[in-house]
């Protein structure tokens, strides 16, 4: 590739961030929107030029700028999809903060653009230390976004977010240093092929798990998430739910599974157990929340639990399903937070009981909200269905018990989401101020309509999103298949009958 498009995608938002700080004030909004849209265009070009079925790593760039590690970028289909998710959500985040953020606008916009740089860097890094730098650096802008522009209890939430995630990742650094010393390279594709001994794999896996489990977040490391979500501004929540939570899943799929297949198989029971608890427990917790954002935050934990189970199912459906849920959840939960933001901007409360009957005075809003609610539940035709179906099918092959329990998550999900929707959009208009709210404005249309379109696209024709990832997931499956734990599903294939199932036995004397 001649044009270093990945570097360009890092530099455009970076330049935008610096420009935001320089121009200051309200103009920063326009600069930020321009920079994120330009990055999105680059992202579209990236996808358009990505050769499906081509080399595993495309758009590779390498420069030996630093000692001990190199500036190496490159993407495969999995990275491509996650980069697309990030660059797609970013302009929407800027729009969501257009009016909601009034203090220190330029710094806010700069922080978001820096987040975008780091997220693209995380998914594109091909050097394990470069990855770590981007991965850890995302703490700084997120800490500021929560702490400066967050809600009342923002200080507590920002500390919790920072220290939890930092503690998770420092042990991973030690593991990375050991791996690089052992394998003699910090190149991620090379490390993905390196055969680590079974003994060290255990410890390395646990160190990586400490980091990714906090990021995903898996029960019981999830407690930072509801706090951070509730206190963050709307756009902050969108980025948290939409992209930052995906870092954990990406970490599992890029590091834990291919680098330590044996340990992944040994610890699959742990992931299954924690995820099963998460699905049931956090869904029940979501059911009783009085705060809309908290409810969606807990539902995120439940959805991400299905992702982790799918990843550790050790088969193609599970992996594909997990990836689709990650993309779908990024869009849907992001959109749900935006929906919360829309009414929060009008009434300045997230308390569910303060709303009611919004479908009367905000019909378009109610339609969008309904669509995203259904997508969150996993209704066929929406992106949620594709992901959950694929991953549960994959899980069923690995363990029918786990599949059984995880499926209750869908039922519980329907319960809490529909309950939420009923209380907000249906029923009588009990609160006068809520009843007087105006329907969504053009800016809000521009935020919600694109997400709705993609949610439907992914639900109706998921092949567009699966095709780029197929070869990479197949390669990953081939790498981990030998280590796959024995499943308890015991699916006996049986021998096919000679005749069709509806064939009529003429010889038996039947007359027609």
């Amino acid at each position, binding site marked *: 590739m001649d044009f270093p498009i990945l570097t360009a995608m890092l530099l455009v938002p970076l330049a935008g961030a610096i420009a935001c700080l320089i121009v200051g004030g309200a103009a920063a909004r326009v600069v930020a929107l321009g920079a994120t849209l330009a990055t999105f265009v680059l992202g579209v070009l990236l996808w358009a030029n990505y050769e499906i079925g081509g080399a595993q790593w495309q758009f590779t760039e390498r420069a030996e*700028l*630093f*000692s*001990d590690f190199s500036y190496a970028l490159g993407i495969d289909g999995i990275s491509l999809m996650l980069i697309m998710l990030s660059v797609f959500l970013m302009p929407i985040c800027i729009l969501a903060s257009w009016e909601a953020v009034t203090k*220190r606008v330029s*710094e806010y916009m700069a922080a978001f653009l820096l987040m975008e740089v780091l997220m693209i860097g995380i998914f594109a890094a091909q050097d394990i*230390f470069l990855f*770590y*730098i*981007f991965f*850890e*650096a995302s*703490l*700084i802008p997120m*800490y*500021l976004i929560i*702490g*400066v522009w967050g809600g009342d209890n*923002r*200080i507590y939430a*920002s*500390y919790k977010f*920072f*220290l939890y995630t*930092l*503690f998770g990742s*420092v*042990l991973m*650094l*030690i593991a990375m*240093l*050991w791996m690089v*010393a052992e394998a003699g390279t910090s190149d991620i594709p090379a490390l993905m092929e390196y055969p680590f001994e079974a003994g060290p794999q255990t410890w390395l896996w646990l160190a990586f798990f400490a980091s990714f489990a906090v990021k995903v977040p898996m029960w019981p490391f999830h407690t930072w998430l509801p706090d951070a979500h509730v206190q963050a501004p709307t756009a902050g929540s969108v980025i948290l739910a939409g992209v930052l939570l995906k870092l954990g899943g990406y970490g599992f799929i890029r590091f834990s599974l291919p680098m330590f297949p044996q340990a992944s198989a040994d610890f699959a029971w742990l992931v299954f157990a924690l995820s099963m608890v998460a699905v049931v427990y956090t869904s029940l917790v979501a059911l009783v929340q009085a705060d809309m954002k908290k409810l969606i935050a807990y539902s995120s934990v439940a959805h991400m639990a299905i992702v982790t189970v799918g990843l550790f199912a050790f088969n193609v459906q599970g992996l594909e399903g997990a990836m689709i849920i990650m993309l779908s959840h990024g869009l849907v939960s992001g959109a749900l937070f935006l929906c919360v933001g829309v009414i929060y901007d009008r009434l300045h409360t997230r308390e569910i009981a303060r709303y009611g009957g919004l479908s009367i005075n905000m019909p378009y809003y109610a339609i969008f909200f309904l669509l995203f609610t259904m997508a969150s539940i996993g209704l066929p035709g929406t992106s949620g269905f594709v992901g959950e179906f694929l991953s549960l099918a994959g899980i069923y092959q690995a363990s029918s018990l786990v599949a059984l329990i995880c499926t209750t998550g869908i039922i519980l999900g329907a319960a809490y989401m529909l309950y939420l929707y009923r209380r907000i959009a249906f029923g009588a208009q009990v609160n006068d101020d809520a009843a007087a709210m105006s329907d969504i404005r053009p800016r809000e249309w521009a935020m919600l309509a694109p997400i709705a379109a993609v949610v439907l696209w992914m639900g109706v024709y998921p092949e567009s999103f699966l095709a780029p990832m197929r070869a990479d997931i197949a390669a990953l499956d081939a790498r981990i298949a030998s280590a796959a734990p024995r499943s308890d599903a015991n699916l006996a294939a049986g021998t096919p009958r000679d005749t069709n199932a509806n064939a009529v036995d003429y010889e038996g004397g039947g007359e027609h």
Partner: protein
Amino acid sequence: MDFAASFALVLPELVLVVTGLALLLVAAWAGDRLARSVAIIAVSALFGAGFLLVPGLHLGTDGAGTLAFGSLIKVDSFALFAKALIYLSAIGCLVVAPAFFNSEAAGVERGLRAEYPVLVIFATLGMSIMVSAADFMTLYLGLELNSLAAYVLASILRQDQRSAEAGLKYFVLGALASGILLYGMSLLYGFTGSTDFLAVRLALSGELSTGQLFGLIFVLAGLAFKISAVPFHMWTPDVYEGAPTPVTAFFATAPKVAAVALTARVVFEVFGGQVAAWQQIVMFTALASIVFGALGAIGQENLKRLLAYSSINNVGFILLGLAVANVAGASAMLVYLFIYVAMSLGSFVALLMLRDEGGDLYETFADIRGLAVTRPVIAWSLLFFMFSLAGIPPLLGFYSKFVIFQATVEAGLIAFAAIAIAASVIGAFYYIKFVKVMFFDEPAGVVTGSSGTAHWVVLLLMAAIISPLGYLLTPALTDLADKAAGALFFAV
């Protein structure tokens, strides 16, 4: 070796000696009127001395050709690296001093005294000798020259009770430390029959006798005092808080570099054959410094005290590199020192810039509330320094921790590294508290005074080094540090 060659090797020191003595005379006769000129000349002399180091640094020197004056002094790459760092930090601290002392409401007793640059020169000279010592006598001479100047510097604001108290505390405890060190040296001399590093090393081969072991431990304890490593760290917060801020900035950088370099030289060159005897001690000291430096800082309200604990914490990480006891560890330690100096100098200069209209400094958390609104550039720079001290990428402070842990892990001390890095998360707590106070809290609106150009230059320069741009320096820095560390192990 003839004297001419020896003198050629110590040319930077000669420059400092001559300048220091000449300026002392100027200060004695012309008084404080010429203080500013004295400071400018002192800075130029340090620049000149630093310039003389460049060829040696570039080429790398080790071996017998670096010994001067009958192997009392050794000017190898390691000494050159340490000296360059010491001169640079001394320049940084001198440059920012006049604006501090000469603020408007300072009054007669606060003005910049002509002795101040002279004392800095002599302290720097002492450090220069320390890091190039090849004999316990040279070591002690350099150490005391540095310490005596430092005691006076700590109490240079003689009307200020805190400054006087800091000077006295520093003197009493420093003298105690010197005594311990001297006692250890005398034990070693008694049990080995020499004060020369190489001769002592040869005599220490094989099983250590009890006397030799005692000597080793006393020497290490004395040095731990100088680098303020736990459990000999108690003086640091008091002295850092009481001393005038430019002096504190000086204490936190140049003497730290010198003492750490000296410690490295002693443990590798003198005790290099007895790694097992000191490795455990250094490992314990390192971990204890990391943990106590972090825990002690949590309750602090005074920013200078907090930075004092932060320096204890950082010394712990530096000692991790020492505990590895190989070239990679020593090299990582030197890289860490460079980055640490940039971070500390930057943070202290930022503190120097926070003052009210009268010129009095602000020193507590309450004073810097909402600084991001009132003084955004200072606040952002401080944010850089704090995240960098906490070791969060992409700031350069991460790279310093990275190389240290890389060396530790490669040497197989994985559990040790894991404990240390987990403890570093405790430290992150108070660094991000700094950011929280500046960025999240409502402005207190008390920082009003303006700052001098020199402050801005140093602050922005350090911030640029610490910023992600600093990673572009890493190949050159690693190269220099590797040469220096290689020279340290040349004798082995």
